[in-house]
């Protein structure tokens, strides 16, 4: 499984430029899906049909979502010496960028530099630039153009139980979806696995995907923060503590029936879990929940340290718990009982 984590983590896909990561995921899921489509915004939507249609009624639709975009930067200006100015894509801190590299879709690499600063507190994006090794504007323009996006460079590290790399947010959840697609056998209802675009810009892809699918229930899988490193702000989620079942974040109060279904599935299958209340931040479930007339929705979170840096870290035991939990929840929802929700 770590090989696939590495492949997904290293894939290129800043928000709005998800073509490459979409191809990578598509090649992984083609064998499990009955139908695959890409919508107007670029969401990859994979339908898995039930073994048998429910007697006397059309199958209901279960939407499971992980976003495939990642944070990054976008080129805004190239000066006459060939230095590249940029704007952030998604929630980035300028301090995280110091000493880091970015890579563009075609493999062009850049390193971050700063103007002279009297105080490191003055570090702002507009004081920074990217040096792509060009000697003048023409040389730079031959490699990059205004509007081109780049992703952080962050090598994959296998630390044993834990792994680190860039874009674990949310490629680790893409892996959870792929594994659940492989394992879950929906009995009577359809499952739509959505690899969504532009989550980091405000849950944009999930919104149009959910409208198109018109699901009866929605589950997002995303990373959440952590509370278990030295002097960290109190937060009831630890690496290694199991799958996090979302109670609330800034985008969503989990539908009680969906949350309880997750808790019951974890208890019944002996899957380690922890309950999560995240004060800031949201997931695609927030967009799915408000689609059309409303969709009962919840989120399974993978605990992740150092989120939105090139060195995010997850625990493979937690990842396994999330895969098992999502599989169990999908099978329960897709059963004739509909998990008590459908």
């Amino acid at each position, binding site marked *: 499984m770590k090989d696939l984590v590495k492949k997904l983590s290293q894939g290129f896909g800043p928000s709005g430029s998800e073509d490459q990561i979409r191809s990578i995921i598509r090649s992984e899921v083609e064998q499990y899906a009955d139908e695959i489509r890409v919508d107007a915004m670029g969401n990859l939507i994979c339908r898995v049909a039930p073994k048998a249609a429910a007697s006397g009624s059309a199958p209901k639709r279960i939407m499971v979502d992980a976003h495939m975009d990642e944070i990054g930067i976008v080129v*805004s200006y190239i000066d006459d010496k060939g230095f590249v100015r940029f704007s952030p894509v998604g929630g980035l801190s300028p301090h995280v960028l110091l000493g880091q590299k970015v890579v563009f879709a075609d493999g062009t690499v850049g390193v971050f530099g700063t103007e002279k600063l009297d105080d490191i507190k003055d570090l702002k994006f507009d004081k920074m630039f990217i040096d792509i090794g060009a000697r003048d504007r023409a040389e730079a323009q031959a490699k990059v153009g205004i509007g081109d996006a780049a992703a952080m460079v962050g090598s994959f590290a296998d630390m044993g139980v834990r792994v680190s790399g860039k874009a674990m947010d949310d490629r680790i959840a893409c892996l959870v979806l792929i594994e659940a697609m492989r394992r879950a056998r929906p009995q009577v209802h359809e499952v739509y696995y959505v690899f969504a675009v532009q989550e980091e810009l405000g849950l944009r892809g999930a919104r149009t995907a959910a409208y198109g699918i018109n699901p009866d229930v929605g589950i997002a899988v995303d990373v959440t923060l952590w509370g278990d490193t030295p002097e960290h702000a109190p937060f009831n989620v630890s690496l290694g503590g199991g799958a996090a079942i979302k109670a609330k974040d800034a985008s969503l109060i989990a539908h009680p029936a969906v949350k309880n279904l997750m808790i019951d599935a974890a208890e019944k299958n002996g899957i380690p879990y922890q309950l999560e209340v995240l004060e800031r931040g949201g997931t695609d479930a927030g967009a799915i929940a408000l689609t059309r007339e409303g969709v009962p929705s919840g989120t399974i979170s993978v605990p992740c340290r150092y989120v939105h840096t090139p060195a995010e870290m997850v625990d493979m035991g937690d990842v396994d718990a999330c895969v098992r939990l999502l599989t169990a929840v999908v099978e329960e929802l897709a059963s004739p009982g509909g998990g008590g929700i459908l």
Partner: protein
Amino acid sequence: MLFRSVSKLVYVGADRRPGVIGSKPIHLLKAEDMDRATDMDSLYVDIGARNKEDAEKLVKLGDQIVFATRCEPLGEGFLKGKAMDDRVGCYAIIEALKKQHDFDLVGAFTVQEEVGLRGAGVAAYRVKPDLALVLEGTTAHDLTETPEHGYSTVPGRGPAIVYRDASWVGDRRIVDRLIQTAEAAGVPYQIKRTVTGGTDAGRIGPTESGVPVAVMSMPCRYIHSPVSVICADDLNNYVKLAGLFLDSLDERGLPV
């Protein structure tokens, strides 16, 4: 942005009753207030009434007020006027509607963009477009101490094609078609550098299952003030490029 608007002429209400924005004269300002922008609470509109009773005969609560700036040529090849954001876009659509195309062209003159992109979302829901082009006015801060990489656009360098802003990521296929169209016809264009601000694309794009949309903007100096300045050549090229883009849909089909 009324704090910059002391002494500006305005029109109040549907019958355009003239008024003047007044505030405390400079002679009466305290020293510490000299360098501060006047806040909204300290400003009022003087409609030339003697008292409240007279004023209430002339205007009523809820009357909207607009700036009385006249639209006129300015210097060599520039225009000044109010509301260039986004009447330039309205103008481009009016020109575009004069031509028959092979596809249904729906010109949407939307309401309430300035209070949160409100009109465009409901219009897009009604029209359900296969592709949308938003024609906007945008910032053009090529003056004062802004470093060049902070200029969003520069007047005189043509209409600005927007690859993304705070509200939406332009559909790359439409952006590329705009660029190809401009280059093939030799129409000057620029790519907007900054990604701040939002446009109606932020409501059209997420309509239903998603609508491919991109934005072309007109550089406007002093945008969101009582007077904007635009370059006449930019305006001509803006209208021209919008028209040529639509022609390209006849000739080459939709890029999406």
